[in-house]
């Protein structure tokens, strides 16, 4: 790990790498969940992570923005080390305020939406604009309305999460993340908690987002989305990456038996 000081690690890919994860290792008690997972995501690239339940996909995603603190390894976003800094060969935590701001540049969309239930759709989106970006209330509101309109929810800005369908809630959650203009957007099974007829509206918002050049890492079971929208598919199993490659190729002709077995099960 020390051999991979950020300067060394990033020189090779220069500005093209937006998200870099190196040797992410994580255990819960005696249970090793991630055994040294590395992943580079280029600027504007859309990467889908697929794999059986319990293979560590969520844990990996959560390690990228330090909702779980990895036991070892490192994460860089746009060349900047996440949550840590190296000073004179010693790895230190970032100060809490700096870390909090840094997190705003890594958006996250959760399986269960996690909208703030005490706030309206507009307030969900504008809250961090005011508190983190320190925008004036009116400016934050205007941005929130514009972003909500871009996900087709202009008529629902004053609704509470409890008054919205699952698909609408997830679109608000995407708007909340997008409004912060993150450098990379992480999705953890964004459609798995939705009724089947609502999956489409969320996927189409995500497709639109990919079209704007957003760098995205998407854990999903939606093979259609992976094939058509993502640039690369990563197959995880047993706490590691088993196989990865151009979406069409991996999904059509997996080379690893475990990938084959998984794909045949979910089709």
């Amino acid at each position, binding site marked *: 790990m020390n051999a991979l000081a950020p300067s060394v690690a990033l020189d090779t890919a220069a500005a093209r790498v937006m998200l870099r994860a190196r040797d992410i290792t994580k255990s819960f008690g005696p249970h090793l969940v991630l055994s040294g997972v590395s992943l580079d995501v280029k600027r504007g690239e859309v990467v889908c992570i697929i794999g059986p339940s319990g293979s560590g996909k969520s844990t990996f995603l959560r390690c990228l*923005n330090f*909702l779980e603190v990895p036991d070892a390894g490192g994460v860089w976003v746009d060349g900047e080390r996440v949550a840590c800094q190296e000073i004179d060969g010693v790895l230190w935590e970032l100060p*809490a*305020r700096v870390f*909090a*701001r*840094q*997190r*705003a*540049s*890594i*958006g*996250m969309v*959760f399986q*269960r939406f*996690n*909208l*703030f*239930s*005490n*706030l309206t759709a507009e*307030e969900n989106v*504008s*809250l*961090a604009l*005011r*508190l*983190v970006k320190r925008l004036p209330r009116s400016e934050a509101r205007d941005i929130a309305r514009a972003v909500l309109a871009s996900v087709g929810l202009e008529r629902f800005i004053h609704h509470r999460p409890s008054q919205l369908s699952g698909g609408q809630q997830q679109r608000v*959650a995407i708007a*909340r*993340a997008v409004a*912060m203009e993150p450098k990379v957007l992480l999705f953890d099974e964004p459609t798995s908690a939705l009724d089947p007829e609502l999956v489409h509206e969320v996927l189409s918002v995500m497709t639109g987002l990919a079209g704007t050049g957003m760098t995205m890492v998407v854990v999903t079971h939606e093979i259609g989305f992976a094939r058509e929208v993502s640039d690369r598919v990563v197959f995880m199993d047993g706490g590691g990456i088993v196989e990865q490659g151009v979406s069409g190729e991996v999904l059509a002709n997996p080379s690893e038996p475990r990938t084959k077995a998984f794909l045949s099960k979910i089709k």
Partner: protein
Amino acid sequence: MANASPSAVSGAQDYLSGKPRVLGRGKRMAVTSLVIFAAAALAAYILTSGAFNWTVIWAFFFHPAILSGLAMTLELTALSMIVGVLLGVCLAVMAVSRYPAVSAASALYVWMFRGTPLLVQLIFWFNIALVFPTVGFGGWSVSVNALVTPFMAALLGLGLNEGAYMSEIVRAGIGSVDKGQREAAQSIGLGGGQVMAHIILPQALKVIIPPTANQTIGMLKNTSLVSVIGAQELLTKSEDIYARNFQVIELLIVASLWYLLMTTIASGIQFWLERRFGDDRAIRRMVGEQA
């Protein structure tokens, strides 16, 4: 078509419909009349036997001393609850701190104040001058005896004790908020204090307010304990009067009727609060929270 149902076959209903008659109606009426009779007999005895002097009770009900005691009871209840709630929020936030020393301090406080009787704590604060005769720093100092009046001792005793109970209630409220809410807030860059103030505590209110109303009703009654240090609330005032006129039972009834009236009104408010809680916009209006 003609065979669709039995009644359609015969053209007339061939069974009894409607609600069945209730069994045991006579027994129920017998029990009810017995209870009403017993209650009426008891009421008649209390009102007419002369065991209680109702003229005296009525005469003292609005006595200025009683009314000022009543005001003091309400004031102590309100101030102690304010101290208790603020302290409870601090202790609860401390309890979930990532610094073990801070959460341990909170746990120690709760352990001490819940583990000793409130009455003992009140007497302790009243006599605190025995431990610290003066407080101050530099050249400035003040006698603790002058500072800790019976009122101050009562407020300290009730408020600090309430803080321990409120911290458990606030903690349960914080614990009731889904942990996904905190994670989402962190993921958009909110700091720890912002997450607490804008997301966790407003959502915890739904769980915190009903038991807090309960605590307030308890506090209305607990203020009577401060009569042992002479804090001039309702019970102290009643005792003062019966020490002079020996109408002990009558004045205790005066005090009890006032306590009953206050707790009844407070229960009514609590009932209303709980009914409003389905709608969390009501809470937002109440705390003036706005994002």
